[in-house]
């Protein structure tokens, strides 16, 4: 590796592949010694042309396409899309189906947040936290598999309602699982709030002021951790959320710690809502018959996905295929924020700052050190960089 010189600017590309994430993205970090001066985010690697592909498929086929926008918030996408199409159709989804949609949505949020807590531990060098939280997460995956047949891509939604019902015989077991998960989440909250090494790595890191969060249109737990109270379940309620009791979790610290704390508290709120669904789900049909053709019209639906505000715009010109489907997923709304948060932080903190916005991204193992004075280019690895971060070793 090239030796460090005080005046050497280093561009470190993080990306575009990493097995832990769902999308490929690249960060180019311009660093001066240990400090990131600015960051550039390239989000193009995993673009699959889904909006274009959706224009070549029927509305019904698009449920299965749109479910695959994301693996970890697949239900968010199909619920949002189906709700938009149902609005154009002018049909009303039965109450029981709305409760089931919200139930699956909250299970999805719990497993997403538990996954994220584990990855946070991993990026800070504590694989034990990863193992604990991912093991606990298996309870949710087992529940989802019991209800839907799948651990991801549940294929629950269709136009007019849902495709599978909840079975009351499963409810006692589900309630035991929620009791277990509530206890475990309280343990994680204790670790987040009290563990000295965790506090040292996350308190005061990548502070996002409330004003900046608003100005840069941040969404989700990232913005709620900066005291911006925006949550589509509360301010634009859909599915069963008008009937469910929950708190919108916010915090005013605005740092990586606050983003972690908010997500853990949101798990407790999700468990609260899931219990309410099990106690209060109304009887009746799980779907109504939807018209074969989608009439001319448009609709916009907002959904609070685990990562934040998700929006689907659907336009039909009365044909078999949509005229336009526009999807803005929450992570796309947070990248401008992420580039700001990376300024002025240490290289060692880059993984946790990026993961704190809970991105759908991948990052690679390739890091290029460019010495413009000598005209040399050398490479190191992301794993080596992560080891440096954990061990507090010196410069590249």
């Amino acid at each position, binding site marked *: 590796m090239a030796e460090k010189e005080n005046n050497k600017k280093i561009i470190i590309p993080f990306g575009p592949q990493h097995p832990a994430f769902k999308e490929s993205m690249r960060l180019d970090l311009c660093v001066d010694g240990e400090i990131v001066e600015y960051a550039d985010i390239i989000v193009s690697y995993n673009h699959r*042309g889904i909006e274009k592909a959706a224009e*070549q498929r029927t509305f019904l086929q698009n449920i299965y396409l749109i479910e695959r926008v994301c693996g970890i918030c697949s239900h968010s996408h199909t619920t949002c899309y189906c709700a938009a199409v149902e609005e154009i159709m002018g049909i009303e989804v039965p109450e029981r189906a709305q409760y089931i949609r919200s139930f699956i949505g909250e299970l999805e949020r719990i497993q997403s947040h538990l996954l994220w807590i584990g990855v946070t531990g991993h990026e800070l060098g504590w694989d034990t936290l990863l193992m604990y939280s991912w093991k606990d997460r298996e309870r949710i995956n087992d529940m989802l598999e019991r209800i839907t047949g799948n651990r991801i891509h549940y294929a629950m939604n269709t136009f007019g309602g849902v495709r599978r019902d909840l079975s009351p015989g499963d409810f006692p077991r589900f309630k035991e699982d929620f009791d277990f998960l509530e206890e475990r989440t309280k343990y994680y909250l204790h670790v987040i709030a009290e563990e000295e090494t965790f506090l040292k790595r996350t308190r005061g890191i990548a502070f996002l002021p409330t004003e900046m969060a608003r*100005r840069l*249109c941040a969404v989700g737990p990232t913005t709620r951790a900066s005291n911006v109270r925006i949550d589509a379940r509360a301010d634009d309620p859909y599915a069963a959320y008008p009937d469910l009791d929950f708190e919108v979790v916010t915090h005013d610290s605005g740092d990586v710690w606050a983003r972690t704390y908010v997500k853990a508290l949101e798990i407790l709120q999700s468990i609260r809502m899931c219990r309410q669904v099990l106690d209060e789900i109304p009887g009746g049909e799980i779907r109504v018959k939807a018209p074969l053709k989608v009439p001319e019209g448009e609709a916009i639906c907002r959904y609070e996905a685990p990562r934040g505000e998700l*929006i689907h715009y659907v336009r039909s010109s009365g044909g078999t295929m949509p005229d336009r489907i526009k999807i803005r997923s929450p992570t*796309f709304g947070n990248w*401008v924020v992420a580039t700001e948060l990376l300024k002025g932080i240490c290289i060692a903190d880059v993984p946790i700052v990026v993961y704190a916005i809970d991105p759908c991204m991948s990052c690679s193992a390739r890091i290029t050190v460019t010495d413009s004075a000598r005209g040399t280019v050398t490479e190191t690895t992301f794993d080596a960089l992560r080891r440096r971060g954990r061990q507090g070793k010196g410069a590249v």
Partner: protein
Amino acid sequence: MMSEQVAGLIRDMFPGIGVTIPRERRITVYSTADRLHDVLRGLHGAGVTHVTTITCMDKIERGMFELLYHLWWENNLITVRIEIPRAIPVIPTITTIFPGALSYEREIQGMFGIQVENIPDPRRILLSDEFPLGVYPLRKDYEVK
């Protein structure tokens, strides 16, 4: 705020502008490209800060691009709609008012070929480096092979 209140506020701010309420918590404002900045600046002055996204639609049969600027404010999604000619698809940036809209402007620039004037970061987004320049895949005349 109720949708009727928000719609009333917008009508008072911009006399003569078309405002409809398709359903609760959804408001549509019909504007023109030359008024867009005034409308958005006025909304920003009233307290709107959150741009949800910018939707672009290719109305090839009429030779127009339709742009929808979705803003979330006071529990209402305000959609400001404008149209620009397909032959001269130029629009000024709104990042001077809403800095968080940068990603969405880059997206419509790359995917539809809309030229966003004075955009702080004009680099193409979402498309791979090998994707040919000057080809805009979300336009209706782009054929998927």
